[in-house]
Protein backbone atom coordinates (compact mmCIF):
# COMPACT_ATOMS: atom_id res chain seq x y z
CA UNK A 1 0.00 0.00 0.00
CA UNK A 2 1.25 3.47 -0.88
CA UNK A 3 1.44 6.27 1.66
CA UNK A 4 1.14 10.00 1.16
CA UNK A 5 4.53 11.72 1.12
CA UNK A 6 3.83 13.71 4.29
CA UNK A 7 2.93 10.49 6.11
CA UNK A 8 6.22 8.90 5.11
CA UNK A 9 8.11 11.97 6.30
CA UNK A 10 6.22 11.93 9.58
CA UNK A 11 7.06 8.28 10.18
CA UNK A 12 10.67 8.94 9.15
CA UNK A 13 10.95 11.66 11.78
CA UNK A 14 9.50 9.41 14.50
CA UNK A 15 11.91 6.65 13.46
CA UNK A 16 14.90 9.02 13.70
CA UNK A 17 13.77 10.16 17.16
CA UNK A 18 13.22 6.58 18.33
CA UNK A 19 16.67 5.57 17.09
CA UNK A 20 18.19 8.35 19.18
CA UNK A 21 16.17 7.27 22.23
CA UNK A 22 17.22 3.66 21.81
CA UNK A 23 20.90 4.64 21.55
CA UNK A 24 20.62 6.76 24.69
CA UNK A 25 18.75 4.19 26.77
CA UNK A 26 21.21 1.50 25.70
CA UNK A 27 24.41 3.49 26.36
CA UNK A 28 23.33 5.44 29.46
CA UNK A 29 22.17 2.28 31.21
CA UNK A 30 25.83 1.36 31.76
CA UNK A 31 26.34 4.56 33.79
CA UNK A 32 23.21 4.27 35.94
CA UNK A 33 23.60 2.86 39.47
CA UNK A 34 19.96 2.70 40.59
CA UNK A 35 18.68 -0.83 39.82
CA UNK A 36 15.05 0.22 39.18
CA UNK A 37 16.06 2.97 36.74
CA UNK A 38 18.42 0.51 35.06
CA UNK A 39 15.62 -2.01 34.63
CA UNK A 40 13.23 0.61 33.22
CA UNK A 41 15.86 1.73 30.71
CA UNK A 42 16.41 -1.89 29.64
CA UNK A 43 12.65 -2.24 29.15
CA UNK A 44 12.59 0.99 27.13
CA UNK A 45 15.42 -0.27 24.91
CA UNK A 46 13.49 -3.46 24.28
CA UNK A 47 10.21 -1.66 23.44
CA UNK A 48 12.02 0.93 21.28
CA UNK A 49 13.68 -1.84 19.26
CA UNK A 50 10.28 -3.34 18.48
CA UNK A 51 8.82 0.08 17.63
CA UNK A 52 11.68 0.90 15.26
CA UNK A 53 11.08 -2.41 13.47
CA UNK A 54 7.39 -1.50 13.05
CA UNK A 55 8.30 1.95 11.72
CA UNK A 56 10.90 0.65 9.29
CA UNK A 57 8.34 -1.85 7.98
CA UNK A 58 6.13 1.13 7.08
CA UNK A 59 9.07 3.00 5.56
CA UNK A 60 10.13 0.06 3.39
CA UNK A 61 6.55 -0.31 2.11
CA UNK A 62 6.48 3.43 1.38
CA UNK A 63 9.66 3.33 -0.68
CA UNK A 64 8.14 0.97 -3.27
Amino acid at each position, binding site marked *: *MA*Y*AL*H*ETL*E*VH*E*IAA*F*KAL*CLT*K*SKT*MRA*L*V*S*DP*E*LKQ*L*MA*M*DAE*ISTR*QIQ*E*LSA*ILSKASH
Partner: protein
Amino acid sequence: MKHMNHDYLDPINSLHVPELADTTFAMDFLIRAKEGVRNLAFALTETASPDARAVLRNQLRQAIAMHQEITELMLRKKWFHPYELQEQYQLDMLSANNTVLIGQMNLFPDDTSRIGMFDRTPDDANHGGALT
Protein backbone atom coordinates in the same frame (compact mmCIF):
# COMPACT_ATOMS: atom_id res chain seq x y z
CA MET B 1 30.41 21.29 45.20
CA LYS B 2 30.23 24.80 46.65
CA HIS B 3 33.24 26.17 44.80
CA MET B 4 35.56 24.90 42.17
CA ASN B 5 38.10 22.28 43.15
CA HIS B 6 40.88 22.12 40.58
CA ASP B 7 42.14 18.72 41.73
CA TYR B 8 39.84 16.39 39.78
CA LEU B 9 41.38 13.32 41.43
CA ASP B 10 40.32 14.55 44.86
CA PRO B 11 37.84 11.89 46.13
CA ILE B 12 35.67 14.67 47.60
CA ASN B 13 34.51 15.29 44.03
CA SER B 14 33.08 11.77 43.83
CA LEU B 15 30.85 12.30 46.87
CA HIS B 16 27.17 11.76 45.92
CA VAL B 17 28.08 11.71 42.23
CA PRO B 18 26.31 8.38 41.47
CA GLU B 19 23.07 9.73 43.01
CA LEU B 20 23.49 13.02 41.19
CA ALA B 21 24.17 11.22 37.92
CA ASP B 22 21.10 8.98 38.36
CA THR B 23 18.79 11.98 38.78
CA THR B 24 20.26 13.48 35.61
CA PHE B 25 19.80 10.26 33.62
CA ALA B 26 16.25 9.91 34.94
CA MET B 27 15.45 13.51 33.92
CA ASP B 28 16.85 12.90 30.45
CA PHE B 29 14.79 9.71 30.24
CA LEU B 30 11.65 11.58 31.34
CA ILE B 31 12.19 14.36 28.79
CA ARG B 32 12.64 11.79 26.02
CA ALA B 33 9.44 9.97 27.08
CA LYS B 34 7.53 13.27 27.11
CA GLU B 35 8.86 14.27 23.74
CA GLY B 36 7.97 10.84 22.36
CA VAL B 37 4.33 11.20 23.46
CA ARG B 38 4.09 14.65 21.85
CA ASN B 39 5.81 13.61 18.61
CA LEU B 40 3.57 10.56 18.21
CA ALA B 41 0.39 12.52 18.95
CA PHE B 42 1.43 15.10 16.35
CA ALA B 43 2.27 12.45 13.75
CA LEU B 44 -1.04 10.68 14.38
CA THR B 45 -3.02 13.85 13.61
CA GLU B 46 -1.14 14.18 10.29
CA THR B 47 -1.70 10.61 9.13
CA ALA B 48 -4.66 9.16 7.22
CA SER B 49 -3.60 5.64 6.17
CA PRO B 50 -5.31 3.13 8.50
CA ASP B 51 -2.33 0.82 9.01
CA ALA B 52 0.11 3.67 9.69
CA ARG B 53 -2.41 5.15 12.14
CA ALA B 54 -2.75 1.79 13.89
CA VAL B 55 1.04 1.57 14.40
CA LEU B 56 1.31 5.17 15.62
CA ARG B 57 -1.70 4.85 17.93
CA ASN B 58 -0.27 1.68 19.44
CA GLN B 59 3.13 3.29 19.96
CA LEU B 60 1.49 6.38 21.47
CA ARG B 61 -0.20 4.17 24.06
CA GLN B 62 3.12 2.49 24.88
CA ALA B 63 4.82 5.91 25.11
CA ILE B 64 2.20 7.19 27.56
CA ALA B 65 2.63 4.06 29.69
CA MET B 66 6.43 4.47 29.72
CA HIS B 67 6.09 8.14 30.67
CA GLN B 68 3.91 7.14 33.60
CA GLU B 69 6.42 4.51 34.75
CA ILE B 70 9.27 7.03 34.73
CA THR B 71 7.22 9.73 36.51
CA GLU B 72 6.20 7.28 39.23
CA LEU B 73 9.78 6.06 39.68
CA MET B 74 11.09 9.63 40.01
CA LEU B 75 8.36 10.49 42.52
CA ARG B 76 9.12 7.38 44.55
CA LYS B 77 12.84 8.19 44.62
CA LYS B 78 12.07 11.83 45.50
CA TRP B 79 13.98 12.98 42.40
CA PHE B 80 10.99 14.99 41.32
CA HIS B 81 8.59 17.07 43.45
CA PRO B 82 5.60 18.22 41.37
CA TYR B 83 3.57 19.14 44.45
CA GLU B 84 6.29 20.80 46.58
CA LEU B 85 7.35 23.74 44.45
CA GLN B 86 9.89 24.94 47.03
CA GLU B 87 11.64 21.56 47.08
CA GLN B 88 11.66 21.31 43.32
CA TYR B 89 13.08 24.83 43.11
CA GLN B 90 15.92 23.92 45.46
CA LEU B 91 16.68 20.75 43.48
CA ASP B 92 16.69 22.69 40.21
CA MET B 93 18.99 25.37 41.65
CA LEU B 94 21.38 22.71 42.94
CA SER B 95 21.59 20.97 39.59
CA ALA B 96 21.88 24.30 37.74
CA ASN B 97 24.79 25.37 39.98
CA ASN B 98 26.54 22.03 39.64
CA THR B 99 26.13 22.12 35.88
CA VAL B 100 27.65 25.62 35.71
CA LEU B 101 30.62 24.42 37.81
CA ILE B 102 31.13 21.42 35.53
CA GLY B 103 30.91 23.76 32.54
CA GLN B 104 33.74 25.86 33.97
CA MET B 105 36.03 22.87 34.50
CA ASN B 106 38.86 22.33 32.06
CA LEU B 107 38.16 18.60 31.87
CA PHE B 108 40.34 17.81 28.85
CA PRO B 109 43.35 20.12 29.11
CA ASP B 110 45.37 18.28 26.46
CA ASP B 111 44.52 18.36 22.77
CA THR B 112 42.19 15.41 22.15
CA SER B 113 41.58 16.21 18.49
CA ARG B 114 41.54 13.13 16.28
CA ILE B 115 41.66 15.06 13.02
CA GLY B 116 43.91 13.11 10.74
CA MET B 117 42.36 9.82 11.84
CA PHE B 118 38.84 10.90 10.88
CA ASP B 119 39.64 13.09 7.90
CA ARG B 120 37.06 11.41 5.67
CA THR B 121 33.28 11.54 5.86
CA PRO B 122 31.62 8.16 6.54
CA ASP B 123 30.13 7.95 3.04
CA ASP B 124 33.52 8.13 1.33
CA ALA B 125 34.04 4.41 1.74
CA ASN B 126 30.92 3.74 -0.35
CA HIS B 127 31.54 6.26 -3.11
CA GLY B 128 35.30 6.04 -3.46
CA GLY B 129 35.77 9.52 -2.02
CA ALA B 130 33.94 11.35 -4.79
CA LEU B 131 30.82 13.34 -4.04
CA THR B 132 28.05 12.48 -6.45
